[in-house]
């Protein structure tokens, strides 16, 4: 089974934490209890990570034995449970004044990234997996809940960052795992729901589309066609529901609305899709979202033969993002369909020229991975915040 994390019911934080905190009997037997956990070595490693030596600390974690780590985690866990029960300034609480659980969690997360997420390479086989550090992160998240009153805000950001970081490496199943793990703790978290929606959208996008039914011949091929079509339909519906849940949790998530619109368009529901794009255009000031909303709205108009409206939206997309090839193709094609062959050629030629001058990528081309590049910077930001 790929999922490394035990399922958790949506209940109070302490109960949730307790579920994660039960040490294995083997480790409990092997590990002598410590009054002042963790071990000096582990404390030093985590302190190094939190200081300016994060890279070295992540590297050093490679040589850490599972046994030592399990012992430190068991003792930290026991201290955290005790600290959560004591009132005022008790000894167990002091442990967590000198030891940063957040830092430890990020240290193991970065080790997981290094070991398990490959470098993103387009159109090459991706080798990703989930390792023991992911499980350690979950144990530390449980400890954090017991000792840090602001754990929710930190962990919500962390799970979004990890899911996006995994997706950036094209580790799609791993990205889904991280998003779902976060959602087990925070089922109504808007950004997490949106992140899961993006992962599912990418999954659906990457699923091969069969040729039309009329082109499929033979009973075996027909069976494959029906299975694949049903799978795709179910996937897109799941994506739609996830973005709707994200918006129900946080109506200000303009990206979720944009993506919901695109999914509705794929599901052949142009009118609600159009409403989504128009709302993004009316309410968002994010240039990437505006560019995509104009582009996608233009397509709705074009599909419904409102070619002049389509051209207007494509022109708006070009105005927001003059170096986008997708907008140039869209504008050129709309003009060609309108019969303006000269205008079509001009738009295309100018688009290709602009692409050469461009420094940053086209958000349409990055759409399946849009914003996943924020994963690592967000982890960096969480790490830097440890020092402050």
């Amino acid at each position, binding site marked *: 089974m*790929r999922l490394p994390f035990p399922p958790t019911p949506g209940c109070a934080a302490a109960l949730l934490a307790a579920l994660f905190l039960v040490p294995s009997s083997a480790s409990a037997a092997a590990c002598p209890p410590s009054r002042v956990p963790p071990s000096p070595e582990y404390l030093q490693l985590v302190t190094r990570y939190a200081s300016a030596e994060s890279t070295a600390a992540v590297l050093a974690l490679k040589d850490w034995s599972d046994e030592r780590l399990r012992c430190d985690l068991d003792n930290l866990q026991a201290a955290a449970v005790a600290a959560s029960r004591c009132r005022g300034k008790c000894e167990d609480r002091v442990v967590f004044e000198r030891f940063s659980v957040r830092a430890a969690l990020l240290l193991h997360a970065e080790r997981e990234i290094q070991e398990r997420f490959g470098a993103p390479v*387009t*159109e090459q086989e991706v080798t990703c997996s989930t390792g023991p550090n992911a499980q350690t992160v979950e144990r530390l998240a449980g400890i954090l809940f017991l000792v840090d009153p602001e754990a929710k805000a930190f962990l919500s950001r962390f799970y979004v960052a990890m899911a996006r970081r995994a997706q950036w490496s094209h580790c799609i*199943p791993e990205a889904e795992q991280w998003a779902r793990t976060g959602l087990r703790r925070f089922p109504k978290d808007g950004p997490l729901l949106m992140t899961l929606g993006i992962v599912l959208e990418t999954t659906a996008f990457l699923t*091969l589309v069969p040729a039309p039914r009329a082109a499929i011949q033979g009973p075996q091929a027909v069976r494959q066609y029906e299975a694949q079509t049903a799978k795709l339909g179910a996937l897109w519906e799941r994506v739609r529901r996830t973005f709707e849940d994200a918006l129900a949790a946080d109506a200000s998530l303009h990206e979720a609305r944009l993506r919901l619109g695109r999914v509705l368009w794929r599901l052949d529901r142009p009118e609600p899709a159009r409403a989504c794009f128009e709302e993004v255009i009316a309410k968002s000031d994010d240039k990437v979202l505006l560019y995509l909303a104009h582009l996608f709205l233009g397509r709705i108009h074009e599909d419904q033969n409102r070619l002049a409206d389509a051209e207007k939206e494509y022109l708006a997309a070009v105005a927001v993002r003059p170096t986008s090839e997708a907008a140039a*193709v869209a504008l050129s094609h709309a003009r060609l369909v309108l*019969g303006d*062959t000269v205008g079509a*050629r001009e738009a295309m*030629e100018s688009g290709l020229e602009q692409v050469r001058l461009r420094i940053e990528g086209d958000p349409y081309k990055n759409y399946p991975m849009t914003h996943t590049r924020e994963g690592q910077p967000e982890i960096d930001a969480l790490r830097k915040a440890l020092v402050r």
Partner: protein
Amino acid sequence: MKAPFLAFLAVLSGAASQVAQPPTPPKVHSPEVFGVQVDSVYVDAFVSQRRDPVVGLTAADFELKDNGVVQKIDLVSAEALPLTAVLVFDSSNSLAGERLAALQASGKAFLESLRPQDEVSLFTFAGETQWLVRPTADKAAITRALDGLQPGGATAVLDALYAALVLPQTQGRTLVVLFTDGEDNMSWLDWRQMRVVAERSNALIHVVGLKRVEDTVGALPSVDLSGRMLPMTGTPSMEFLHTWGMRQIAESTGGRYWEAESPARLKSAFAAITETMAQRYILSYEPQGVKRPGWHEIELRLPGRTGDVHTRRGYWVAER
């Protein structure tokens, strides 16, 4: 005022008499890929029987209907018409290694098969399109560009094909040879839009696909409902939209989808295109008894003979 829809196609302006007497070279005006003048229509056809080309036919062997009306046709010498070959080559990341080397070698061999006066243009595409060489008779310029190809990025086949049909302003016959080894995962246009554009251009489109089932299928693995990647093993009996769509586009222009089983077979796929080009019939007529603007359905057959006729399905005339 803009014409209401696409202008068209395999049509040369100028009097039919200029092109009706082979082998005298016709005086060719500027039949842009999307021109608007339709005095003479040129139909580029290939005839086969059990996959072998049928050669030696005359105009009298064909019957051509334009929107259901039989037309008087002439046979034009292909030798007499200038040819522009537009190469549209995939340079995405999946091409790294022997695939790229095979493509470069196949492209160069294809160049050698062209006549000195034929022009060539080169587009490459990954996530985006690059127009590397504009139409030129200088084949060395194309060779240099092929040598400089570097794989990288995703695959936006349809957008690149669109650019290749819209941008070059060609004369005479336009042959587009598109090579790709993966699924389109980045194009703005979809295959339906692209088929309409292809049908209404004057280009003959051949697509060469490189089979890749055993690996990640153009980085588009199938994914099950739990999110696990499903490896593609063996040949699925069901055809996927990408391959089917590319075939539709090619065949709508009278061309073909050629699938190379391996990089080593690429060269023969390109050679087959060259061979069929030499065995094509170019028929010319001035449309009679049909309304000019709008879509013209072409029906070409061999009454009294057996053989499969491969030609474009029709052409479009814009309102002047």
